[in-house]
């Protein structure tokens, strides 16, 4: 039996609204069309053959023969079509699947087309969770019915507390999941989670640097996930529409120069981080290995830039804060350092149901966040750099970004990789971000469980298939 702790409850069993972070329950019950490795490269899954069209609009998938959902109905092209069309309107994934059309040339082949070139076809296929058409058509999401490696054991499940699964022996890749039973326990309080781990009530949980030593001291195995998250200020008002000063490159550069990244890594993160000079994950296509610190820590120089830009007296910046984002540690330092160039930070606490909407509304053009970096940097560019990226909260147009993205969409593999690096270079030169530190994340597990690597392309934790 494998028992894992989850730091948050699941959001129910709607396949269209499933987070990838700690998405073990979804990975247990549903299978995906393809499976991505940690760099986002696709492998066979429900589809054992696939091709992406040269114009990067269409993914054609040949489904594995003989696969059935746990209720006995076949996983065929019609089922995939129902799922894909549902994603386009379901909510959670809808912006990524919006406007798709699906054709089914035969019962085992399905072609999903996007209205515009989409270089992230592989990731979309890997994120898909294929549920029975009956559950989707009837919007019956009480009990999940899929074709994944496990089946929910309803009798031994208490929502919000414990989810129990039994192994689906007819799963096509059953040998990769050695545990007969899977139990997911909701342990929102980190102290409770670590206590449960120490007393062997669970076999693994995410831990923060605050409880890392305690877990280590108890003899737990620690997997350190490096470089998967970057702490950064996202200066999204490049045109200075909301705060005119932010439209000035010298101001954005000055904001970069007041942070001592080495000191942050050592002191604020107690050595559990390394300095970041760019926003992409090391090893991804957009990452530039030999990029030196473009804006070395130099407050005097920063002051001169502010003066040159005509903002020697500074301006006021509202930065949103939320619990659970390490803001209580970071914000005092950010506030103090920006004050050195007379930028007065007003913290605005966001909480409750409106928090996410407010955060992404563009009302606060410079959020501070510890954001994940993907193994596939195209997803980072899509989320953080493109005009409609969710984290590019001011959504301002930029001709250079558009031109480089056009190369990503139409170029060869080499050109595409170069365009990504050029995009990285461009946003760095334009100081669109203030990257500060690559923070380490930790997964603590019982030494009896073999979990040597994390194949999650978000790099945030091990996936179910990583537990041996």
């Amino acid at each position, binding site marked *: 039996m494998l028992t894992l702790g989850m730091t948050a409850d699941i959001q129910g069993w709607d396949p269209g609204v499933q987070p990838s972070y700690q998405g073990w329950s979804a990975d247990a019950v549903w299978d995906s069309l393809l499976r991505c490795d940690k760099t986002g490269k696709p492998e066979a899954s429900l589809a054992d053959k696939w091709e992406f069209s040269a114009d990067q609009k269409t993914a054609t998938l040949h489904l594995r023969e003989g696969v059935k959902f746990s209720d006995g109905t076949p996983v065929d092209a019609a089922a995939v079509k129902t799922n894909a069309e549902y994603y386009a309107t379901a909510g959670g994934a*809808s912006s990524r699947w919006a406007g798709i059309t699906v054709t089914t040339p035969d019962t085992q082949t399905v072609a999903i087309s996007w209205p515009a070139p989409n270089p992230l076809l592989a990731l979309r296929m890997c994120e898909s969770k294929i549920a029975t058409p009956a559950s989707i058509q009837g919007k019956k999401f009480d009990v999940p019915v899929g074709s994944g490696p496990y089946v929910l054991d309803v009798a031994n499940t208490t929502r919000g*507390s414990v989810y129990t699964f039994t192994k689906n022996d007819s799963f096509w890749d059953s040998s990769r999941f050695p545990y007969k039973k899977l139990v997911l326990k909701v342990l929102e309080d980190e102290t409770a989670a670590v206590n449960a781990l120490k007393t062997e009530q669970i076999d693994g949980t995410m831990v923060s640097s605050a409880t890392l030593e305690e877990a280590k001291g108890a003899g737990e195995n620690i997997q350190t996930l490096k470089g998967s998250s970057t702490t950064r200020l996202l200066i999204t008002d490049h045109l200075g529409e909301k705060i005119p000063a932010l439209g000035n490159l010298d101001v954005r550069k000055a904001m970069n120069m007041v942070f001592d990244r080495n000191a942050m890594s050592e002191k604020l993160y107690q050595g559990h981080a390394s300095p970041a000079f760019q926003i992409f994950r090391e090893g991804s296509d957009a990452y530039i290995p030999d990029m030196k610190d473009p804006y070395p820590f130099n407050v005097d120089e920063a002051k001169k830039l502010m003066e040159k830009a005509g903002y020697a007296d500074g301006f006021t910046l509202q930065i949103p804060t939320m619990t659970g984002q390490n803001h209580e540690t970071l914000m005092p330092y950010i506030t103090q350092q920006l004050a050195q160039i007379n930028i007065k930070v007003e913290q605005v606490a966001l909480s409750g149901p409106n928090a996410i909407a407010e955060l992404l509304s563009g009302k606060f053009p410079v959020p501070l966040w510890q954001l994940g970096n993907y193994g596939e940097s195209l997803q980072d560019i899509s989320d953080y750099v493109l005009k409609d990226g969710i984290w590019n909260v001011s959504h301002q147009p930029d001709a250079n970004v558009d031109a480089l993205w056009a190369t990503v969409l139409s170029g060869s593999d080499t050109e595409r990789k170069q365009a990504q690096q050029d995009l990285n270079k461009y946003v760095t030169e334009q100081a669109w971000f203030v990257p500060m530190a690559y923070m380490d994340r930790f997964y603590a597990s019982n030494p009896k469980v073999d979990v040597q690597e994390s194949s999650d392309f978000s790099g945030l934790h091990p996936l179910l298939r990583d537990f041996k």
Partner: protein
Amino acid sequence: MLSLLKSLLRSAAILLLVSFATFCLMFGNGTGIARAILGYQATEADVQRKVVNLGLDRPLFVQFGDWLVNAVTGNLGESFFTGQTVTSALSTRVPVTLTLVILTLILTLILSVLLGVAAAVYGGWLDKVLQFVAVLGAAVPPFIIAIALVFMFAISIRLFPATGYVSPDRSFSGWILSVTLPVVALLIGSVASAASQFRGAVLDALSKDFVRTLRARGLKESHVIFRHVLRNAGGPGLTVLSLQTLGLLGGAIFVEQVMALPGMGQMANQSAQQGDVPMVMGTVVVTIIIVLSVNFLGDLANSVLNPKARTR
């Protein structure tokens, strides 16, 4: 009979008022709730569609009216986030919290009467210890006590589980083990405060003329204390006990969090943060019903003990 009816009407009015106030507080804006449900990736159109689907675009009074009409018929709606019915969620959550609260109340009653009487009658070091423990118990919040208990009795000596709840119909011994530490965590503060109230009330009763008269008639001391003094002192003690129910429910939220018990506190906390209006309303209604019931029972017990109370 009339006072009973009045009490029930008063309870219904409180229930209605608190429900409405909670609904107003939770109402916020529908767009925010829909966005929280659908996540970062949802398009604006999807968010707006969700707002309409959930009926969050309607005026506040209409939404509350609908909720109220359904609630009266026993339908508390479904979670915005998980689709689970609120009654089904409560059916697993309420027993956990009620177990903690009821066990703590019963043990508090027994222990605080014994300790309060002993401290008042014998005085001396026992009284001093009780007063010291009362201050300490009131000063240290239950969740700190829970952390310490888990460290001592679940991690250092593995006598009890560190987290989780076992239902008694699955394993009675498992249930006892799973509730021991959380109940003790709640009990310490609760006994400390109730015992000193009983102590004060017993001391007060002991100084009354009727006690001197009873003793002069040669009645046994134990008879005087347990038959007469305690009956007089019981009223204020029971009032404190019933008032403590609210504090215990509050304390249970944190103890449930620290020990990962799937109770109402944890559900209320999580639902309130998400803006899951039906779930929050469900927990609020049940909590008010529990508090009102305990207060009602407290009044009833008080009136049995003290005939003067019945005439008020």
